[in-house]
Protein backbone atom coordinates (compact mmCIF):
# COMPACT_ATOMS: atom_id res chain seq x y z
CA UNK A 1 0.00 0.00 0.00
CA UNK A 2 2.81 2.35 0.96
CA UNK A 3 4.54 1.72 -2.35
CA UNK A 4 1.38 2.48 -4.25
CA UNK A 5 0.88 5.81 -2.51
CA UNK A 6 4.48 6.75 -3.05
CA UNK A 7 4.20 5.99 -6.76
CA UNK A 8 1.12 8.11 -7.13
CA UNK A 9 2.61 10.93 -5.15
CA UNK A 10 5.73 10.74 -7.25
CA UNK A 11 3.70 11.18 -10.40
CA UNK A 12 2.03 14.15 -8.77
CA UNK A 13 5.41 15.67 -7.88
CA UNK A 14 6.76 15.13 -11.37
CA UNK A 15 3.76 16.86 -12.85
CA UNK A 16 3.94 19.76 -10.45
CA UNK A 17 7.66 19.74 -9.79
CA UNK A 18 7.82 23.49 -9.98
CA UNK A 19 5.14 24.00 -7.40
CA UNK A 20 5.83 24.17 -3.72
CA UNK A 21 2.49 22.71 -2.75
CA UNK A 22 3.05 19.40 -4.44
CA UNK A 23 6.48 19.02 -2.90
CA UNK A 24 4.99 19.72 0.50
CA UNK A 25 2.31 17.14 -0.21
CA UNK A 26 4.96 14.62 -1.20
CA UNK A 27 6.65 15.11 2.10
CA UNK A 28 3.41 14.99 4.00
CA UNK A 29 2.31 11.75 2.43
CA UNK A 30 5.76 10.21 2.56
CA UNK A 31 6.01 10.87 6.24
CA UNK A 32 2.52 9.95 7.26
CA UNK A 33 1.42 7.39 4.70
CA UNK A 34 1.32 4.74 7.35
CA UNK A 35 -1.53 6.63 9.05
CA UNK A 36 -3.62 7.08 5.89
CA UNK A 37 -5.64 4.44 4.13
CA UNK A 38 -5.74 4.37 0.38
CA UNK A 39 -9.19 5.92 -0.17
CA UNK A 40 -8.54 8.94 2.10
CA UNK A 41 -5.19 9.35 0.42
CA UNK A 42 -6.81 9.44 -3.01
CA UNK A 43 -9.28 12.05 -1.82
CA UNK A 44 -6.52 14.11 -0.30
CA UNK A 45 -4.33 13.97 -3.37
CA UNK A 46 -7.15 14.84 -5.73
CA UNK A 47 -8.15 17.75 -3.47
CA UNK A 48 -4.66 19.18 -3.21
CA UNK A 49 -3.82 18.27 -6.78
CA UNK A 50 -6.57 20.52 -8.02
CA UNK A 51 -5.36 23.32 -5.77
CA UNK A 52 -1.76 22.68 -6.67
CA UNK A 53 -2.51 22.96 -10.37
CA UNK A 54 -4.14 26.29 -9.83
CA UNK A 55 -1.23 27.46 -7.69
CA UNK A 56 1.18 26.27 -10.34
CA UNK A 57 -0.49 28.37 -12.98
CA UNK A 58 -0.11 31.46 -10.82
CA UNK A 59 3.42 30.64 -9.74
CA UNK A 60 4.77 30.09 -13.23
CA UNK A 61 4.30 33.79 -13.80
CA UNK A 62 6.01 34.59 -10.52
CA UNK A 63 8.99 32.33 -11.23
CA UNK A 64 9.90 34.13 -14.42
CA UNK A 65 10.12 37.39 -12.51
CA UNK A 66 11.80 35.97 -9.33
CA UNK A 67 14.12 33.09 -10.24
CA UNK A 68 15.95 33.25 -6.87
CA UNK A 69 12.79 32.29 -5.09
CA UNK A 70 13.18 28.59 -5.93
CA UNK A 71 16.38 27.61 -4.07
CA UNK A 72 15.16 29.47 -1.00
CA UNK A 73 12.09 27.34 -0.86
CA UNK A 74 14.10 24.21 -1.50
CA UNK A 75 16.29 25.13 1.40
CA UNK A 76 13.23 25.42 3.57
CA UNK A 77 12.14 21.99 2.48
CA UNK A 78 15.59 20.64 3.14
CA UNK A 79 15.39 22.13 6.61
CA UNK A 80 12.10 20.37 7.20
CA UNK A 81 13.61 17.14 5.95
CA UNK A 82 16.60 17.49 8.25
CA UNK A 83 15.22 15.71 11.29
CA UNK A 84 18.61 14.92 12.85
CA UNK A 85 18.90 18.45 14.25
CA UNK A 86 22.70 18.19 14.07
CA UNK A 87 24.70 21.42 13.88
CA UNK A 88 25.91 22.15 10.39
CA UNK A 89 29.58 21.45 11.18
CA UNK A 90 28.66 17.88 12.16
CA UNK A 91 25.97 17.31 9.55
CA UNK A 92 28.43 18.36 6.85
CA UNK A 93 30.53 15.31 7.70
CA UNK A 94 27.73 12.82 6.93
CA UNK A 95 28.49 10.82 3.81
CA UNK A 96 25.22 11.67 2.01
CA UNK A 97 25.57 15.37 2.82
CA UNK A 98 29.35 15.76 2.33
CA UNK A 99 29.54 19.54 2.12
CA UNK A 100 31.98 22.09 3.44
CA UNK A 101 31.37 22.93 7.09
CA UNK A 102 30.38 26.45 8.07
CA UNK A 103 33.55 28.36 8.84
CA UNK A 104 31.68 30.85 11.03
CA UNK A 105 31.13 28.13 13.61
CA UNK A 106 33.14 28.95 16.73
CA UNK A 107 34.40 25.41 17.11
CA UNK A 108 35.86 25.50 13.61
CA UNK A 109 37.04 29.10 13.66
CA UNK A 110 39.11 28.52 16.77
CA UNK A 111 40.56 25.18 15.70
CA UNK A 112 43.58 25.50 13.45
CA UNK A 113 43.85 21.74 12.99
CA UNK A 114 40.35 21.53 11.51
CA UNK A 115 40.83 24.64 9.36
CA UNK A 116 43.98 23.08 7.89
CA UNK A 117 42.08 19.89 7.14
CA UNK A 118 39.31 21.88 5.45
CA UNK A 119 41.88 23.71 3.32
CA UNK A 120 43.48 20.41 2.39
CA UNK A 121 40.10 19.00 1.35
CA UNK A 122 38.51 21.98 -0.42
CA UNK A 123 41.59 23.92 -1.49
CA UNK A 124 41.46 27.55 -2.49
CA UNK A 125 37.67 27.44 -2.91
CA UNK A 126 37.28 27.07 0.86
CA UNK A 127 38.17 30.74 1.19
CA UNK A 128 40.56 30.07 4.07
CA UNK A 129 43.81 32.00 4.24
CA UNK A 130 46.48 29.42 3.30
CA UNK A 131 48.90 30.99 5.79
CA UNK A 132 47.02 29.01 8.45
CA UNK A 133 48.97 25.90 7.46
CA UNK A 134 52.30 27.12 8.82
CA UNK A 135 53.06 27.76 12.50
CA UNK A 136 52.63 31.31 13.76
CA UNK A 137 55.67 33.44 14.47
CA UNK A 138 55.22 32.84 18.20
CA UNK A 139 54.80 29.09 17.64
CA UNK A 140 57.86 28.99 15.41
CA UNK A 141 59.82 30.68 18.16
CA UNK A 142 58.80 27.98 20.62
CA UNK A 143 59.61 25.23 18.13
CA UNK A 144 63.04 26.72 17.52
CA UNK A 145 63.70 27.01 21.25
CA UNK A 146 62.64 23.40 21.80
CA UNK A 147 64.90 22.20 19.01
CA UNK A 148 67.78 24.23 20.40
CA UNK A 149 67.27 22.75 23.88
CA UNK A 150 66.45 19.14 23.04
CA UNK A 151 67.87 18.23 19.63
CA UNK A 152 71.66 17.92 19.66
CA UNK A 153 73.52 19.04 16.54
CA UNK A 154 75.27 16.60 14.24
CA UNK A 155 78.68 17.67 15.52
CA UNK A 156 77.56 17.12 19.14
CA UNK A 157 76.34 13.65 18.30
CA UNK A 158 79.53 12.69 16.50
CA UNK A 159 81.72 14.09 19.29
CA UNK A 160 79.76 12.18 21.89
CA UNK A 161 80.02 8.98 19.86
CA UNK A 162 83.78 9.39 19.51
CA UNK A 163 84.15 10.09 23.22
CA UNK A 164 82.13 7.02 24.06
CA UNK A 165 84.23 4.90 21.73
CA UNK A 166 87.46 6.24 23.23
CA UNK A 167 86.21 5.54 26.76
CA UNK A 168 85.32 1.99 25.75
CA UNK A 169 88.73 1.45 24.18
CA UNK A 170 90.43 2.85 27.25
CA UNK A 171 88.48 0.59 29.54
CA UNK A 172 89.29 -2.41 27.39
CA UNK A 173 92.97 -1.54 27.32
CA UNK A 174 93.09 -1.07 31.07
CA UNK A 175 91.44 -4.40 31.61
CA UNK A 176 93.85 -6.14 29.29
CA UNK A 177 96.80 -4.57 31.09
CA UNK A 178 95.40 -5.61 34.44
CA UNK A 179 94.93 -9.17 33.22
CA UNK A 180 98.47 -9.32 31.78
CA UNK A 181 99.93 -8.02 35.03
CA UNK A 182 98.03 -10.53 37.08
CA UNK A 183 98.93 -13.37 34.73
CA UNK A 184 102.62 -12.53 35.20
CA UNK A 185 102.16 -12.88 38.96
CA UNK A 186 100.27 -16.14 38.58
CA UNK A 187 103.14 -18.71 39.05
CA UNK A 188 104.26 -16.94 42.20
CA UNK A 189 100.75 -16.87 43.60
CA UNK A 190 100.20 -20.54 42.76
CA UNK A 191 103.45 -21.50 44.56
CA UNK A 192 102.37 -19.46 47.55
CA UNK A 193 99.04 -21.16 47.56
CA UNK A 194 100.58 -24.64 47.54
CA UNK A 195 102.91 -23.62 50.38
CA UNK A 196 99.98 -22.34 52.39
CA UNK A 197 98.06 -25.51 51.76
CA UNK A 198 101.04 -27.67 52.87
CA UNK A 199 101.40 -25.66 56.09
CA UNK A 200 97.74 -26.11 56.76
CA UNK A 201 98.02 -29.84 56.21
CA UNK A 202 101.00 -30.05 58.57
CA UNK A 203 99.12 -28.20 61.31
CA UNK A 204 96.19 -30.51 60.86
CA UNK A 205 98.40 -33.58 61.10
CA UNK A 206 99.98 -32.31 64.29
CA UNK A 207 96.60 -31.68 65.80
CA UNK A 208 95.55 -35.18 64.94
CA UNK A 209 98.71 -36.63 66.45
CA UNK A 210 98.17 -34.69 69.63
CA UNK A 211 94.62 -35.94 69.86
CA UNK A 212 95.73 -39.50 69.25
CA UNK A 213 98.35 -39.12 71.95
CA UNK A 214 95.70 -37.94 74.39
CA UNK A 215 93.46 -40.83 73.47
CA UNK A 216 96.36 -43.22 74.04
CA UNK A 217 97.00 -41.66 77.39
CA UNK A 218 93.33 -42.00 78.29
CA UNK A 219 93.44 -45.67 77.35
CA UNK A 220 96.47 -46.16 79.57
CA UNK A 221 94.77 -44.26 82.39
CA UNK A 222 91.44 -46.11 82.32
CA UNK A 223 92.66 -49.38 80.95
CA UNK A 224 90.33 -49.45 77.95
CA UNK A 225 89.93 -47.33 74.78
CA UNK A 226 87.39 -44.48 74.96
CA UNK A 227 85.94 -42.01 72.51
CA UNK A 228 86.73 -38.27 72.70
CA UNK A 229 83.00 -37.61 73.34
CA UNK A 230 83.11 -39.62 76.53
CA UNK A 231 82.72 -37.52 79.73
CA UNK A 232 85.49 -39.55 81.31
CA UNK A 233 87.88 -38.43 78.63
CA UNK A 234 86.88 -34.85 79.23
CA UNK A 235 87.37 -35.32 82.95
CA UNK A 236 90.83 -36.66 82.36
CA UNK A 237 91.73 -33.76 80.17
CA UNK A 238 90.46 -31.33 82.78
CA UNK A 239 92.52 -33.01 85.48
CA UNK A 240 95.54 -32.94 83.27
CA UNK A 241 95.00 -29.30 82.47
CA UNK A 242 94.74 -28.58 86.19
CA UNK A 243 97.96 -30.43 86.85
CA UNK A 244 99.65 -28.61 84.07
CA UNK A 245 98.42 -25.35 85.50
CA UNK A 246 99.72 -26.27 88.90
CA UNK A 247 103.06 -27.25 87.50
CA UNK A 248 103.23 -24.06 85.57
CA UNK A 249 102.41 -22.05 88.67
CA UNK A 250 105.01 -23.85 90.71
CA UNK A 251 107.54 -23.31 88.01
CA UNK A 252 106.67 -19.64 87.87
CA UNK A 253 107.07 -19.36 91.63
CA UNK A 254 110.39 -21.09 91.52
CA UNK A 255 111.57 -18.81 88.79
CA UNK A 256 110.52 -15.83 90.83
CA UNK A 257 112.41 -16.96 93.90
CA UNK A 258 115.42 -17.73 91.76
CA UNK A 259 115.30 -14.31 90.24
CA UNK A 260 115.00 -12.70 93.72
CA UNK A 261 117.95 -14.73 94.98
CA UNK A 262 120.03 -13.77 92.00
CA UNK A 263 119.17 -10.12 92.55
CA UNK A 264 120.12 -10.32 96.20
CA UNK A 265 123.36 -12.07 95.36
CA UNK A 266 124.19 -9.38 92.88
CA UNK A 267 123.47 -6.59 95.32
CA UNK A 268 125.56 -8.24 98.04
CA UNK A 269 128.41 -8.63 95.65
CA UNK A 270 128.17 -5.00 94.62
CA UNK A 271 128.17 -3.90 98.26
CA UNK A 272 131.19 -5.98 98.98
CA UNK A 273 132.93 -4.47 96.03
CA UNK A 274 132.11 -0.93 97.14
CA UNK A 275 133.39 -1.64 100.63
CA UNK A 276 136.62 -2.96 99.19
CA UNK A 277 137.03 0.15 97.10
CA UNK A 278 136.43 2.38 100.12
CA UNK A 279 139.06 0.50 102.08
CA UNK A 280 141.52 0.91 99.28
CA UNK A 281 140.86 4.65 99.14
CA UNK A 282 141.40 4.97 102.90
CA UNK A 283 144.64 3.10 102.61
CA UNK A 284 145.79 5.41 99.84
CA UNK A 285 144.95 8.45 101.98
CA UNK A 286 146.91 7.01 104.86
CA UNK A 287 149.83 6.38 102.58
CA UNK A 288 149.72 9.96 101.36
Amino acid sequence: MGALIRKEVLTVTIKTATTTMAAALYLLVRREHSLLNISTCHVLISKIFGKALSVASTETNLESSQPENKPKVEDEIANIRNVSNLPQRLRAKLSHVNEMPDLNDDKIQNNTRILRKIYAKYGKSSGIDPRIMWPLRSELKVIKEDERDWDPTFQDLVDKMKQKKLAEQKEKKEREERVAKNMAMMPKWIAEYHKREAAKQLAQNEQEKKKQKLLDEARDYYGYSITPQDPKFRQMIEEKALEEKKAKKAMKKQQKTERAQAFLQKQLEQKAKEEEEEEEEEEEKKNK
Partner: protein
Amino acid sequence: MSYIAGITDKALKLIASMPRVALNNLKGLPGSKKTFQRRRGREKGSKHGRGDKGQGARMTLPRLGFEGGQFPFYLRFPKERYYEGHHMKRQYPPLSLLQLQRMIDLGRVNPDEPIDLTTLCNTKLYKCSPEHHHYGVNLTDEGIDIFQAKVNIEVQWTTENVIAAVERNGGVITSRFYDIQSVMALVNPEKFFQRGIPIPKCKLPPEDAIEYYTDPHFRGYLADPEKVAEARLELAQKYGYEVPDFSKDPLYEMLKQKKDPRQIFFGLAPGWVVNLKDRVILKPKAQEWKEYYHS
Protein backbone atom coordinates in the same frame (compact mmCIF):
# COMPACT_ATOMS: atom_id res chain seq x y z
CA MET B 1 68.70 53.98 60.34
CA SER B 2 65.05 54.92 60.92
CA TYR B 3 64.69 55.48 57.17
CA ILE B 4 65.69 51.85 56.47
CA ALA B 5 63.42 50.57 59.21
CA GLY B 6 60.55 52.46 57.58
CA ILE B 7 61.22 50.78 54.27
CA THR B 8 61.29 47.31 55.80
CA ASP B 9 58.05 48.02 57.61
CA LYS B 10 56.46 49.12 54.38
CA ALA B 11 57.75 46.06 52.56
CA LEU B 12 56.50 43.74 55.28
CA LYS B 13 53.09 45.42 55.19
CA LEU B 14 53.00 45.06 51.43
CA ILE B 15 53.85 41.38 51.64
CA ALA B 16 51.25 40.87 54.37
CA SER B 17 48.54 42.41 52.20
CA MET B 18 49.44 40.29 49.15
CA PRO B 19 47.29 37.29 48.23
CA ARG B 20 48.70 34.05 49.64
CA VAL B 21 48.96 30.72 47.88
CA ALA B 22 46.33 28.70 49.66
CA LEU B 23 43.95 25.84 49.02
CA ASN B 24 41.19 28.25 48.06
CA ASN B 25 43.11 29.83 45.20
CA LEU B 26 45.08 26.85 43.87
CA LYS B 27 44.14 25.67 40.39
CA GLY B 28 45.23 22.83 38.16
CA LEU B 29 47.14 23.52 34.98
CA PRO B 30 44.96 24.17 31.94
CA GLY B 31 44.10 20.89 30.29
CA SER B 32 45.17 18.80 33.29
CA LYS B 33 41.62 17.83 34.19
CA LYS B 34 39.90 15.40 31.87
CA THR B 35 36.16 15.13 31.96
CA PHE B 36 34.59 11.76 31.35
CA GLN B 37 31.73 11.87 28.87
CA ARG B 38 29.00 9.54 30.02
CA ARG B 39 27.71 7.48 27.13
CA ARG B 40 24.27 8.54 25.99
CA GLY B 41 21.61 7.53 23.51
CA ARG B 42 19.11 4.73 23.24
CA GLU B 43 21.71 1.97 22.76
CA LYS B 44 24.39 3.03 25.17
CA GLY B 45 22.68 5.42 27.53
CA SER B 46 20.77 3.22 29.91
CA LYS B 47 23.73 1.79 31.83
CA HIS B 48 26.32 4.07 30.21
CA GLY B 49 28.39 1.11 29.06
CA ARG B 50 29.12 -0.10 32.57
CA GLY B 51 26.99 -3.24 32.67
CA ASP B 52 24.39 -4.23 35.21
CA LYS B 53 25.10 -3.83 38.95
CA GLY B 54 28.22 -4.98 40.73
CA GLN B 55 31.73 -3.62 41.01
CA GLY B 56 31.79 -2.35 37.41
CA ALA B 57 28.64 -0.29 37.74
CA ARG B 58 29.58 1.07 41.17
CA MET B 59 33.19 1.79 40.21
CA THR B 60 34.50 -0.36 43.03
CA LEU B 61 36.66 -2.64 40.91
CA PRO B 62 39.85 -3.90 42.61
CA ARG B 63 43.09 -2.14 41.80
CA LEU B 64 45.16 -3.01 38.76
CA GLY B 65 47.26 -6.16 39.21
CA PHE B 66 45.22 -7.39 42.19
CA GLU B 67 44.46 -11.10 41.88
CA GLY B 68 41.80 -11.54 44.51
CA GLY B 69 44.19 -11.88 47.43
CA GLN B 70 46.59 -14.25 45.65
CA PHE B 71 50.25 -13.19 45.72
CA PRO B 72 50.16 -11.17 42.49
CA PHE B 73 52.31 -11.69 39.47
CA TYR B 74 53.87 -8.24 39.54
CA LEU B 75 55.18 -8.86 43.07
CA ARG B 76 55.98 -12.54 42.71
CA PHE B 77 58.57 -12.14 39.98
CA PRO B 78 61.52 -9.79 40.14
CA LYS B 79 62.20 -7.19 37.46
CA GLU B 80 63.86 -8.40 34.29
CA ARG B 81 66.54 -5.78 33.73
CA TYR B 82 67.20 -6.86 30.16
CA TYR B 83 63.65 -5.85 29.26
CA GLU B 84 64.25 -2.27 30.39
CA GLY B 85 62.89 0.13 27.81
CA HIS B 86 61.97 -2.68 25.41
CA HIS B 87 58.65 -0.99 24.67
CA MET B 88 60.52 2.07 23.41
CA LYS B 89 63.01 0.27 21.19
CA ARG B 90 63.04 1.02 17.49
CA GLN B 91 61.57 -1.75 15.33
CA TYR B 92 62.44 -2.41 11.70
CA PRO B 93 59.94 -4.81 10.09
CA PRO B 94 61.94 -7.06 7.75
CA LEU B 95 61.70 -7.29 3.98
CA SER B 96 63.77 -9.96 2.26
CA LEU B 97 65.60 -9.63 -1.04
CA LEU B 98 63.38 -12.46 -2.27
CA GLN B 99 60.25 -10.43 -1.56
CA LEU B 100 61.77 -7.37 -3.22
CA GLN B 101 62.70 -9.38 -6.31
CA ARG B 102 59.17 -10.77 -6.42
CA MET B 103 57.64 -7.29 -6.16
CA ILE B 104 59.81 -6.14 -9.07
CA ASP B 105 59.00 -9.23 -11.17
CA LEU B 106 55.27 -8.79 -10.60
CA GLY B 107 55.42 -5.11 -11.51
CA ARG B 108 54.44 -3.91 -8.05
CA VAL B 109 57.69 -1.95 -7.79
CA ASN B 110 59.26 -0.04 -10.65
CA PRO B 111 63.05 -0.58 -10.54
CA ASP B 112 63.58 2.34 -12.94
CA GLU B 113 62.75 4.76 -10.15
CA PRO B 114 64.40 5.16 -6.76
CA ILE B 115 62.80 2.89 -4.18
CA ASP B 116 62.08 4.22 -0.70
CA LEU B 117 59.73 3.43 2.17
CA THR B 118 56.77 5.04 0.36
CA THR B 119 57.29 2.83 -2.71
CA LEU B 120 57.34 -0.29 -0.56
CA CYS B 121 54.29 0.72 1.49
CA ASN B 122 52.37 1.57 -1.69
CA THR B 123 52.69 -2.03 -2.88
CA LYS B 124 50.44 -3.00 0.06
CA LEU B 125 52.63 -6.11 0.32
CA TYR B 126 54.84 -4.56 2.98
CA LYS B 127 53.42 -3.05 6.16
CA CYS B 128 55.02 -0.53 8.46
CA SER B 129 53.07 0.97 11.34
CA PRO B 130 54.84 3.86 13.06
CA GLU B 131 52.38 3.69 15.96
CA HIS B 132 54.10 0.40 16.90
CA HIS B 133 57.55 2.05 16.87
CA HIS B 134 58.28 0.81 13.35
CA TYR B 135 61.03 3.04 12.03
CA GLY B 136 61.18 1.60 8.51
CA VAL B 137 62.43 -1.37 6.56
CA ASN B 138 65.13 -3.88 7.42
CA LEU B 139 66.34 -5.48 4.18
CA THR B 140 67.30 -9.07 4.99
CA ASP B 141 69.41 -11.58 3.07
CA GLU B 142 66.82 -14.24 2.28
CA GLY B 143 66.95 -14.92 -1.47
CA ILE B 144 70.35 -13.30 -1.73
CA ASP B 145 71.51 -15.74 -4.43
CA ILE B 146 68.61 -15.09 -6.80
CA PHE B 147 68.49 -11.31 -6.45
CA GLN B 148 69.19 -9.81 -9.87
CA ALA B 149 67.52 -6.40 -9.97
CA LYS B 150 69.43 -3.18 -10.44
CA VAL B 151 67.88 -0.73 -8.04
CA ASN B 152 68.51 2.51 -6.19
CA ILE B 153 67.03 1.57 -2.84
CA GLU B 154 66.85 3.41 0.46
CA VAL B 155 66.48 1.23 3.55
CA GLN B 156 66.54 1.92 7.26
CA TRP B 157 68.59 -1.09 8.34
CA THR B 158 70.58 -3.76 6.54
CA THR B 159 73.61 -6.03 6.65
CA GLU B 160 76.88 -6.26 4.76
CA ASN B 161 75.97 -9.22 2.54
CA VAL B 162 72.73 -7.55 1.41
CA ILE B 163 74.70 -4.44 0.46
CA ALA B 164 77.07 -6.64 -1.53
CA ALA B 165 74.13 -8.36 -3.29
CA VAL B 166 72.63 -5.02 -4.36
CA GLU B 167 75.94 -3.48 -5.44
CA ARG B 168 77.03 -6.57 -7.38
CA ASN B 169 74.09 -5.98 -9.75
CA GLY B 170 75.18 -2.37 -10.25
CA GLY B 171 72.61 -0.96 -7.84
CA VAL B 172 72.84 1.60 -5.08
CA ILE B 173 71.77 1.15 -1.46
CA THR B 174 71.61 3.75 1.30
CA SER B 175 70.86 3.39 5.00
CA ARG B 176 68.64 6.28 5.91
CA PHE B 177 67.09 7.25 9.25
CA TYR B 178 63.65 8.85 9.55
CA ASP B 179 62.17 10.13 12.79
CA ILE B 180 58.70 8.87 13.64
CA GLN B 181 56.85 11.93 12.28
CA SER B 182 58.61 11.49 8.94
CA VAL B 183 57.82 7.77 8.89
CA MET B 184 54.15 8.60 9.43
CA ALA B 185 54.28 10.92 6.42
CA LEU B 186 56.17 8.35 4.34
CA VAL B 187 54.00 5.29 4.93
CA ASN B 188 50.84 7.11 3.88
CA PRO B 189 51.59 10.39 2.06
CA GLU B 190 47.95 10.93 1.06
CA LYS B 191 46.81 10.82 4.66
CA PHE B 192 49.62 13.18 5.57
CA PHE B 193 48.70 15.70 2.85
CA GLN B 194 45.07 15.61 4.05
CA ARG B 195 46.25 17.06 7.34
CA GLY B 196 47.19 20.28 5.59
CA ILE B 197 50.49 20.77 7.39
CA PRO B 198 53.92 21.52 5.94
CA ILE B 199 56.27 18.63 5.23
CA PRO B 200 58.45 18.33 8.34
CA LYS B 201 62.20 18.49 8.23
CA CYS B 202 63.68 15.14 9.16
CA LYS B 203 65.48 14.95 12.48
CA LEU B 204 68.92 13.49 13.00
CA PRO B 205 69.28 9.90 14.25
CA PRO B 206 69.35 9.37 18.02
CA GLU B 207 72.52 8.84 20.00
CA ASP B 208 72.51 5.06 19.79
CA ALA B 209 72.00 5.01 16.01
CA ILE B 210 74.40 7.74 14.93
CA GLU B 211 77.26 5.27 14.64
CA TYR B 212 75.34 3.11 12.14
CA TYR B 213 74.18 6.01 9.98
CA THR B 214 77.64 7.61 9.80
CA ASP B 215 79.32 4.30 8.95
CA PRO B 216 80.38 4.03 5.28
CA HIS B 217 80.37 0.22 5.58
CA PHE B 218 76.60 0.33 6.06
CA ARG B 219 76.26 3.07 3.39
CA GLY B 220 75.01 5.48 6.05
CA TYR B 221 73.45 8.64 4.64
CA LEU B 222 75.58 10.78 6.97
CA ALA B 223 78.85 9.11 5.97
CA ASP B 224 81.52 10.83 3.90
CA PRO B 225 80.75 10.06 0.17
CA GLU B 226 84.43 9.48 -0.59
CA LYS B 227 84.67 6.93 2.17
CA VAL B 228 81.50 5.28 0.89
CA ALA B 229 83.14 4.93 -2.54
CA GLU B 230 86.17 3.34 -0.88
CA ALA B 231 83.96 0.98 1.08
CA ARG B 232 82.20 -0.07 -2.15
CA LEU B 233 85.52 -1.06 -3.63
CA GLU B 234 86.59 -2.82 -0.47
CA LEU B 235 83.37 -4.84 -0.31
CA ALA B 236 83.67 -5.82 -3.97
CA GLN B 237 87.15 -7.16 -3.32
CA LYS B 238 85.96 -9.02 -0.26
CA TYR B 239 83.06 -10.76 -2.08
CA GLY B 240 84.88 -11.07 -5.41
CA TYR B 241 82.95 -9.00 -7.95
CA GLU B 242 83.68 -5.96 -10.06
CA VAL B 243 82.19 -2.57 -9.22
CA PRO B 244 80.39 -1.32 -12.33
CA ASP B 245 81.06 2.21 -13.56
CA PHE B 246 78.03 4.40 -12.88
CA SER B 247 78.82 7.25 -15.20
CA LYS B 248 78.43 4.98 -18.27
CA ASP B 249 75.17 3.49 -17.03
CA PRO B 250 72.01 4.45 -18.98
CA LEU B 251 70.23 4.72 -15.61
CA TYR B 252 72.92 7.03 -14.22
CA GLU B 253 70.50 9.90 -13.53
CA MET B 254 68.21 7.59 -11.56
CA LEU B 255 71.01 5.83 -9.68
CA LYS B 256 72.61 9.04 -8.46
CA GLN B 257 69.37 10.40 -7.00
CA LYS B 258 69.69 10.89 -3.28
CA LYS B 259 67.65 12.74 -0.69
CA ASP B 260 68.99 15.55 1.41
CA PRO B 261 69.44 14.54 5.10
CA ARG B 262 66.52 16.84 5.96
CA GLN B 263 64.37 15.78 3.00
CA ILE B 264 61.59 13.20 3.25
CA PHE B 265 59.98 12.93 -0.18
CA PHE B 266 61.78 12.95 -3.53
CA GLY B 267 61.25 16.31 -5.22
CA LEU B 268 59.61 17.94 -2.19
CA ALA B 269 61.43 20.10 0.31
CA PRO B 270 60.58 20.46 3.99
CA GLY B 271 58.24 23.37 4.67
CA TRP B 272 56.20 22.90 1.53
CA VAL B 273 52.49 22.08 1.63
CA VAL B 274 50.96 19.81 -1.01
CA ASN B 275 47.31 20.51 -1.77
CA LEU B 276 45.74 17.52 -3.51
CA LYS B 277 42.50 19.35 -4.38
CA ASP B 278 44.09 22.23 -6.29
CA ARG B 279 47.08 20.09 -7.36
CA VAL B 280 49.48 22.78 -6.21
CA ILE B 281 52.50 23.07 -3.94
CA LEU B 282 52.44 25.96 -1.50
CA LYS B 283 55.80 27.28 -0.31
CA PRO B 284 56.52 29.66 2.55
CA LYS B 285 57.83 33.04 1.42
CA ALA B 286 58.81 34.72 4.68
CA GLN B 287 62.51 34.60 5.44
CA GLU B 288 62.09 33.32 9.00
CA TRP B 289 60.12 30.25 7.93
CA LYS B 290 62.41 29.62 4.97
CA GLU B 291 65.42 29.70 7.23
CA TYR B 292 63.82 27.34 9.72
CA TYR B 293 62.89 24.71 7.14
CA HIS B 294 66.24 24.91 5.33
CA SER B 295 68.44 24.71 8.43
